[in-house]
């Protein structure tokens, strides 16, 4: 039997089909013994379950069961969430990301302004040290649409002076 027909049979048992669909199912199973057997099984199982739901009792005395509920209710009522605090917490969820976004925007605008300022000394701000052996200076001229980077090798004496203590330590050992 096709899975589609099986599920249609079930929907038929459950009353989930339109009148037309229900008639189609009845026609489809009229000469199908297997489908009729399955239909009977589904109907019997449903009827048995609906008429015989297992009955259970709470495995605790009435007083003990209620005492835990009463305690929990009293506890929740002792610590009510104050409306103003709740409002602040809900507002905070919106304010925190908004403030973060505003800060990022502010920094982006400020950075753009610094980079595009017409201050003639602004090119001096860009000095970067790549390593202890090399320094670099950059120069930018917006009026000439020019950007120059000057790499400068540090003197050997300076580098040796920086390294001397390490050699001394090795000799001492």
């Amino acid at each position, binding site marked *: 039997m096709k899975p589609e027909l099986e*599920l249609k049979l079930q929907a038929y048992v459950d009353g989930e089909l339109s009148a037309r669909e229900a008639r189609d199912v009845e026609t489809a199973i009229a000469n199908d013994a297997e489908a009729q057997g399955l239909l009977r099984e589904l109907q019997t*199982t*449903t009827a048995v379950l609906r008429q015989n739901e*297992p009955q259970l009792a709470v495995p605790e005395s009435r007083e003990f*069961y*209620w005492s835990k*509920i009463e305690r929990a209710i009293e506890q929740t009522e002792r610590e009510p969430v104050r409306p103003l605090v709740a409002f602040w917490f809900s507002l905070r969820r919106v304010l925190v990301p908004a403030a973060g976004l505003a800060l990022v925007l502010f920094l982006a605008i400020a950075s753009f302004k610094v980079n595009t300022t017409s201050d003639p000394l602004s090119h001096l701000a860009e000095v970067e040290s790549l390593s202890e052996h090399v320094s670099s200076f950059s120069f930018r001229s917006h009026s000439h649409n020019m950007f120059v980077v000057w790499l400068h090798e540090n003197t050997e004496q300076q580098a040796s002076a920086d390294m001397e203590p390490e050699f001394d330590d090795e000799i001492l050992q």
Partner: protein
Amino acid sequence: MATQQEHAALGDEKLVRLAQRGDMRAFEELVARHRDKIYARAFSMVRNEDDAVDLSQEAWVKAWQRLKQFQGESSFVTWMTRIVINLCLDHLRKAKRHRAESIEMMDEESGGVERQMPVVQINPTEGLERGEIRQRIDKALGQLSYEHRTVLVLHEFEQLEYKEIAKRMQCSIGTVMSRLFYARRRMANLLASFKRDELS
């Protein structure tokens, strides 16, 4: 303030109205009256006595907190049952995240296990006393995966429609239908096997 005996004589509607005005003793009477049903629903879904007790008590606490929202469109016990079902579904979802899928589920996903089950031709509970039938149903429910058991409980015991079950279980109607089909076929075969065991 009414005594416990006076409360016991009142109907659910009156007790609910008193409880809505803050009468804790009226609420206690409602708990005493319906606690077994609410616990049984929780147990039918989670299949663990301690969890069922905890979840049913949590449901009562939630009910007290939301009592003013209850407008009486359904009966009080139906409203309470919906609360405990939602709590159980949340509990089962959390538990599922910490658990590998069962072999049974993998079989179902690979398809067609229910189609290999023979059609049960007779009523496997015929001639049994009601208590015995209930025991066998309970035993068979315990052998289903929680997805199949839940869909069966919601459909057969709560008599919810496919659409409503899909909404509560957060799945498609097609999934509800295939799970229900599998669960019913498995139940029929389990009840038939209990009958065979009895005869042999």
